[in-house]
């Protein structure tokens, strides 16, 4: 009997390689789990007809374009849209023989921190279904944590892989900007979006990263990557761990979250790391406003193509301009509308310098501050999310409160840096995530640190209520 809640992708690979289990049996186990639990969790928007590979099955966030399989980006404006081409990551996943289980739920156009902005209804946290799984990639995280997929791919712009991973008690990697192709990924903010793995363990994460990463001629913003090393060491000797004051003392971090993180930092010392305090003076205070200018500006531009002309929803209303305006008003939810307007404003004549232009400079400041911190340290740690999973509806009426969920993930995103979130403890029975940030192209360091901590912490990623 395959226990999909506990089985890691690496273990599944082993079962297949030794013929202990057939690809069909493995596939069926996950489909059975989906039948049993997805009605409650609502992780999936589309389920595949049948396995299209013989490897370890995988779920893909519904912003990842899949040829022949509906891709909605969690929006009504793309309801029924079936791409005629594969995104590069979907193609690489297919080439590696990983069969697609289905497309997972997401906040609309990846804008949100809870999946409550999905036009198709929210997903639920497997640890407590009255709570959010995080967002925007809550569907993928809940699927992995809830045993409905061995591993999944998400996308991260301001924390959309890391934060759901933290809230669901699993592992999530936001790779260095430019190491994973964005070709075929429904674009939100072009200079920030990155696709990354959502997995049960750090080694699974490294395995999946190796499948998808590397330069793509179809995406001019990608670069080659260093060879991926699967982590083995279970100590942190020789690693310098930095604790940025501003990230760790930010307002709004729950006491339970703070304690779990502090214990983990102490654990780093026990594992042989050199731990020290550092500072990112302006990155936290100005990170959020910087992000909420740049991301919406780029989003307002990237979403201009949804006009009812070539694909997607069309709402007739008079001439061309009326049709476009009513299609967009009818097809987009509130959050995209807010961000589109905010973005258009930030780019508009007379306001560009003060808003978008200024934010681009703040971005330089944030990158410089991180670079300075990395002169003395190899990784920077903090909580991933200021809070544990919050109840559905708790923040959905207050956009600014929702934005604060990304307070700690945003600064490193602005600097294009990779970040790994691993579960590091519980607070009131709910998972707490530790964010480990590295230099550009230092994924191997993140895997090393994450794996050693994972082994030492011994966090049980199967939600208590499902054991």
């Amino acid at each position, binding site marked *: 009997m395959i226990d999909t809640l506990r089985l890691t992708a690496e273990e599944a690979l082993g079962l297949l390689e030794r013929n202990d289990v057939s690809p069909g049996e493995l596939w069926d186990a996950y489909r059975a789990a989906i039948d049993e639990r997805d009605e409650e969790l609502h992780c999936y928007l589309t389920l595949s007809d049948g396995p299209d590979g013989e490897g370890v099955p995988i779920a893909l966030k519904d912003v990842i374009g899949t040829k022949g399989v509906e891709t909605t980006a969690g929006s009504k404006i793309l309801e*029924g849209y*079936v791409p*005629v081409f594969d995104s590069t990551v979907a193609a690489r996943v297919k080439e590696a023989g990983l069969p697609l289980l289905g497309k997972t739920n997401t906040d609309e156009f990846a804008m949100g921190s809870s999946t409550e902005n999905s036009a198709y209804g929210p997903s639920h946290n497997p640890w407590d279904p009255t709570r959010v799984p995080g967002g925007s990639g809550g569907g993928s995280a809940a699927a992995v944590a809830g045993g409905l997929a061995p591993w999944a791919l998400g996308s991260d712009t301001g924390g959309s892989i890391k934060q759901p991973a933290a809230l669901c008690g699993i592992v999530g990697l936001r790779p260095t*900007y*430019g190491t994973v192709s964005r070709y075929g990924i429904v674009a939100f903010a072009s*200079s920030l979006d990155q696709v990354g793995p959502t997995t049960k363990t750090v080694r699974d994460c490294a395995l999946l990263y190796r499948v998808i990463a590397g330069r793509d*001629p179809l995406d*001019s*913003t990608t*670069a080659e990557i260093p060879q991926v090393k699967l982590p083995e060491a279970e100590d942190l000797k020789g690693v310098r761990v930095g604790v940025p004051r501003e990230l760790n003392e930010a307002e709004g971090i729950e006491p339970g979250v703070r304690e779990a993180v502090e214990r983990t930092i102490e654990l780093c010392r026990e594992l042989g790391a050199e731990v020290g305090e550092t500072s990112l003076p*302006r990155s936290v*205070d*100005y990170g*959020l*406003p910087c992000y*909420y*200018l740049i991301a919406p500006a780029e989003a*307002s531009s990237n979403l*201009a193509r949804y*006009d009812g*002309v*070539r*694909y*997607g*929803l*069309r709402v*007739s209303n008079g*001439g*061309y*301009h009326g*049709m*476009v*305006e*009513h299609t*967009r*008003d009818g097809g*987009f939810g*509130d959050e995209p*509308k*807010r961000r*589109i*307007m*905010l973005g*258009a*404003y*930030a780019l*508009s004549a007379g306001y560009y310098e003060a*808003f978008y232009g*200024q934010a*681009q*400079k*703040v*971005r*330089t*400041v944030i*990158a410089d501050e991180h670079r300075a911190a990395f002169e003395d340290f190899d990784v920077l740690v903090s909580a991933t999310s200021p809070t544990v999973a919050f109840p559905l509806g708790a923040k959905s009426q207050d*956009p*600014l409160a929702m*934005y604060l969920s990304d307070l700690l993930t945003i600064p490193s995103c602005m600097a294009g840096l990779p970040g790994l979130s691993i579960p590091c403890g519980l607070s009131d029975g709910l998972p707490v995530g530790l964010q480990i940030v590295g230099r*550009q192209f230092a994924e191997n360091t993140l895997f090393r640190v994450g794996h050693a901590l994972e082994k030492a912490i011994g966090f049980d990623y199967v939600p208590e209520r499902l054991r």
Partner: protein
Amino acid sequence: MAITREQIEHVARLAHLALTEEELERLGGQLGAILEAVGKVSELDLSDVEPTSHPLDLVNVWRPDEPVPSLTLEEAQANAPQTEGGFFKVPPTNEPEPS
């Protein structure tokens, strides 16, 4: 930072969103609060700082002038709301294209 009704309508027009009266009220109010929060960036004096438009230091990424097969007409029109023959059909524009 207060955003006026005119400014919201102007931005909605630029972004081609036909906002309802209810949306103008509600979203407009939220927009004002958000603008207030993001306006914080102007507190910093960054006159000596270069803006970052690209996170990596890549330059000169391009492709050779070599043809790649195009989509078939069926594929191109696969998700189209309305077509006529080989064309995409749209309601009339009634004005020339901006330059």
